[in-house]
């Protein structure tokens, strides 16, 4: 009998059920989409923050002091220690290798540039542009094109990493009156200029070349002066700043397994022999603050969205139930007890919530995917574990929203309800 009442209610009052169901579906869609966005926004913004530059620096452990002004290194070229280029792929073998979005080795070399019989000193910077690196079974591209996205080739093209083409910084090119396609003579070697580089920094006065070329000019194959590493990190907290040597086992594990700038730097030092790794504070310190602000904002906005959804669902359910006062009056006049009447309506509400919840979850996932695609050019994935959570919330909210209306309607005198008076 009970089941038949509920079934008939759905069959005969399709339009009313549809409207209430639509409200629940919309509420669940918005809630699902917002929760998906809120959980993923941290990672998305973290990736966008990588465009400000590398946040970790690896240098040789035994290095002598840098004497550098405005990008010009005044140290004798062979002075100081070097890292080995062959060790660099090991960066991708660290625990947090998935958080490392790219690295770029640098080797600055002093060269003599001949131009119209005159010669002047300049710096030639050797680096990776978009080099294919192999580690174990993994292959990936890395270089300044990923770690330094504000570098722009204003005319010409990026050199190939295995070629002998170079880029001229735009200020150097202007001073030497050279352009794309010219040949530049540096330390006795004739090099083809494949493009003009604009960075806004000291590189505009330098020649930027593939690493192998710089190593050849220096006469030290496989040498690297420093490596800039770009990694997705977690904002620093008290645990991050502690000295790993002072930590007990489980605390050390927790520190090691959290992507703090310090722990990733520690792992880089472990992976590359004779190296010293640290965070580049200007980048690493500030991105934590920006990330925290944005995550906090989206979290609060999501709470507002959930609240609005809950209110919309409650309002729709309350209206739908209050419209059926006459029905309730009839059931009571026929002898149904309050509990029996209430349970019919609660059963209907639960069914509506479950159906609306399913459809809303699907629509919300689609909406989250769309938002991710259009704003971040990447997917916002909805974790499947969210489905039972969303369904449970939908049922609870629908219940709560109907409860007040049901109790009020059930409390009315059947005579008045049947007569249509309030």
């Amino acid at each position, binding site marked *: 009998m009970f089941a038949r009442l509920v079934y008939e209610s759905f069959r005969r009052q399709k339009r009313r059920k549809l409207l209430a169901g639509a409200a629940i579906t919309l509420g669940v869609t918005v809630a699902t989409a917002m929760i998906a966005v809120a959980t993923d926004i941290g990672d998305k913004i973290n990736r966008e923050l990588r465009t400000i530059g590398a946040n970790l620096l690896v240098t040789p452990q035994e290095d002598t002091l840098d004497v550098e002004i405005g990008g010009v290194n005044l*140290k004798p070229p062979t002075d100081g220690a070097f890292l080995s280029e062959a060790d660099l792929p090991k960066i991708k073998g660290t625990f947090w290798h998935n958080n490392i979005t790219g690295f770029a080795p640098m080797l600055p070399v002093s060269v003599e540039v001949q131009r119209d019989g005159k010669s002047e000193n300049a710096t030639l910077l050797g680096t990776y542009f978009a080099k294919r690196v192999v580690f174990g079974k993994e292959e990936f591209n890395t270089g300044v094109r990923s770690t330094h996205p504000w570098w722009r080739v204003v005319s010409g093209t990026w050199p190939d990493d295995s070629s002998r083409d170079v880029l001229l910084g735009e200020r150097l090119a202007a001073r030497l009156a050279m352009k794309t396609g010219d040949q530049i003579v540096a330390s006795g070697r004739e090099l083809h200029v494949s493009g003009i580089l604009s960075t806004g920094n000291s590189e505009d006065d330098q020649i930027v070349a593939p690493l192998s070329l710089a190593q050849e000019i220096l006469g030290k194959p496989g040498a690297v002066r420093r490596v800039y590493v770009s990694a997705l990190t977690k904002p620093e907290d008290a645990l991050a700043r502690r000295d790993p040597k002072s930590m007990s086992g489980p605390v050390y594990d927790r520190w090691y397994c959290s992507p703090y700038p310090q722990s990733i730097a520690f792992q880089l030092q472990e992976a590359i022999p004779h190296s010293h790794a640290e965070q580049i504070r200007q980048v690493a310190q*500030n991105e934590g603050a920006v990330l925290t602000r944005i995550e906090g*904002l989206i979290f609060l*906005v999501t709470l507002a969205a959930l609240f609005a959804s809950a209110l919309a669902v409650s309002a*729709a359910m309350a209206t739908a139930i*209050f419209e059926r006062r006459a029905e309730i009056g009839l059931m009571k006049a026929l002898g149904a007890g309050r509990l029996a009447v209430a349970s019919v309506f609660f059963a209907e509400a639960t069914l509506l919530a479950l159906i609306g919840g399913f459809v809303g979850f699907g629509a919300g996932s689609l909406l989250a995917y769309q938002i991710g695609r259009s*704003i971040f050019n990447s997917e916002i994935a909805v974790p499947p574990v969210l489905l039972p959570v969303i369904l449970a919330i939908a049922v609870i909210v629908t219940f709560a929203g109907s409860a007040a209306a049901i109790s009020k309607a059930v409390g009315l005198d059947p005579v008045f309800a049947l007569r249509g008076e309030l």
Partner: protein
Amino acid sequence: MFFRMLVRAAVLRRGRAAAALFAMVVAAAVATAMLNLYIDVQAKLRREFRNYGANIILVGRDGASLPADARSQVESVLAGRGVVAPFALVVARTSDGQPIVVAGTDFDRVRQLDRWWSVSNWPSAPQQALVGVRAASVVSPKNLPFDLSFQGHVIHLTSVGTVQTGAAEDSRVYLSLADFVAWTGVQSSTIEVAANGTPEEITAIMRQLEQAIPAADVRPVRQIMEGEARVLGKTRATLLAAAALIILTAALCVLSTLMGWVFDRRRDFAIMKALGASDRLLNGFFAAEAAGLGAAGAVIGFILGIGIAAWIGRVNFHAPVVPRFSILPFVLAGSMVVTLLSAILPISLLRRVQPAVILRGE
């Protein structure tokens, strides 16, 4: 007569009218809070990005020093809209003859501009030096006072603190600008500027600086400005999407509540029609009711929404969110549309039904 009916309608059905008003207030509050946040979040996040330091750099052309009055010129152009820090650099020699880069700067300004510097202790008196962590082992291994010489002039310094940044600063020694100029005679070659404002304002500032100091090369720090624009743009887009969804949901809430309320009053409608009211009068009556409710709800909701946005500003950004009264017309217009829709739709459905049928309760 018209207004008496309006008022009595609200007064007599206080319960239902209150529920409808509540829905309206909540919807308007949420919409106001979201729009206020959307407008303000740019300004808030830009302030966070100023912690990255300078976004404009002035250098002397072709490696020359800047004119001596460059700093005061920059400060007057900026007029308080940012922080200015001068830097003067030379290569000096330690007592062992090792070359080392020494910089002269204004420590107070650097402290405001370059907040990420990890400094153990800032110099506060003459002849005090701030030494980079890598330079420390070279110039003053046991933290003893040390000498530096430049072109024959020697300066005696005490290291009072170390600085660590993970960049070039770690290999340098920093003095106050006064000490530096007295020792070397070299003026500042770089001025770092962290300017507040939108990209357009910053470009305008750069142009003013170029005009004021023709001997200087004014460069934007592209990585910060481009990164800032990207992150801000995407955050704003996300916020807009969220705002749209929330406002839609809130409008739905109002619509269903109000439609239910109007539908519930179909007996009033039927009585008025049976007594001879014209369609126009009926439409006007219910529309006026709805509009009144919409306006009242919008205003109350607006005030509440401003409060919510201010609270979010305090909790998340630790800075007040400026209430934007320009939102009020939009919220008002929006609520009018929603309430009128929720009144007109049921009325147009009921219009076709005979009053007698409604009065009989069918």
